[in-house]
């Protein structure tokens, strides 16, 4: 980041040990935050709290939602009808007026999520998006040639299966309810949640039983 020579080794206040002299953009961030704090528009506490919230979000939350939908048909119906409210039931709160919309993958339909304009993503249930989701190639191509893009993720969608690509925005975020893998009937809800990956909930892959697992349950 910074090309500034920095040969003394004392620690700077407010920086982690492994952080060198902050670069230009890091200084901008600190400056804006301090100015707004001094103006009384934001507080240092809420900034720290927000970092804790960011740290607490992960795809494990989305996996919990998916596993519940797989074992509880009534919950699944509520989830598909109103994603935000159903997530709230499991303690996951969407922010602001953001609507969470859940689409279900079936034998006839595969769904995949993108944000072509920027990087909108269902952060409360999946955490932060991977870099490839924010990069140009995925955003440009998945809306035009989803089959080819999915194939690059190792996901081959049969020709007879329709693909829907959902383009997110600041007020509408999407979560994909993947298909429950065949042979998972005997797994517990927690074990099912363990199978659900971030990428399956974005829709670029499917949920699979671990390699070596025998069909019909755990071996």
């Amino acid at each position, binding site marked *: 980041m910074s090309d500034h020579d920095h040969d003394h080794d004392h620690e700077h206040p407010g920086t982690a040990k492994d952080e060198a*002299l902050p670069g230009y953009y890091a200084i901008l961030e600190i400056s804006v935050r301090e*100015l707004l704090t001094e103006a009384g528009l934001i507080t240092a506490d809420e900034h720290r709290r927000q970092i804790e919230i960011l740290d607490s979000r992960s795809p494990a939350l989305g996996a919990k939602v998916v596993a519940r939908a797989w074992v509880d048909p009534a919950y699944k119906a509520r989830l598909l009808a109103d994603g935000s409210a159903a997530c709230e039931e499991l303690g996951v709160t969407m922010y602001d007026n953001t609507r969470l919309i859940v689409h279900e993958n079936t034998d006839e339909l595969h769904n995949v999520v993108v944000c072509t*304009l920027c990087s909108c993503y269902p952060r409360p249930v999946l955490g932060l998006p991977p870099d490839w989701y924010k990069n140009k190639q995925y955003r*440009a191509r998945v809306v035009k040639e989803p089959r080819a893009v999915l194939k690059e993720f190792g996901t081959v969608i049969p020709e007879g299966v329709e693909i829907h690509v959902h383009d997110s925005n600041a007020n509408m975020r999407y979560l994909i309810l993947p298909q429950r893998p065949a042979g998972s009937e005997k797994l517990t809800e927690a074990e099912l949640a363990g199978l659900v990956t971030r990428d399956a909930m974005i829709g670029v892959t499917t949920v699979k039983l671990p390699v070596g697992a025998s069909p019909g349950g755990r071996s």
Partner: protein
Amino acid sequence: MSTENLVKQRANDIGGLEAGPIAMVDHEMLPWEKRCHALLDILDIHKIVNTEEKRRGVEDLGSEMIGKLSYYERWIVSAINVLLEKRVLTPDQLAKKTAEVEARFKS
């Protein structure tokens, strides 16, 4: 070359364009990136700079900056431009503060 497309399709509007293979990359967030993310979340919560304003601010950076700045570099520059536009901050305040912060870390 026609300039029509520059008008019709702004820098963020890339859905459907030709592009290369997906690079399956990800990186651990740098500490300053996480602070930047948290700051922008708070700005959205208080509607000082909301998510759509931030997105539009990134778009206004133009294709060269969008192409060369990293993700969170774009966020902070966008936020600053929106804050200046809305006169929540002034250029003077910002110049003084950045000099002060820089001096603090160099000392």
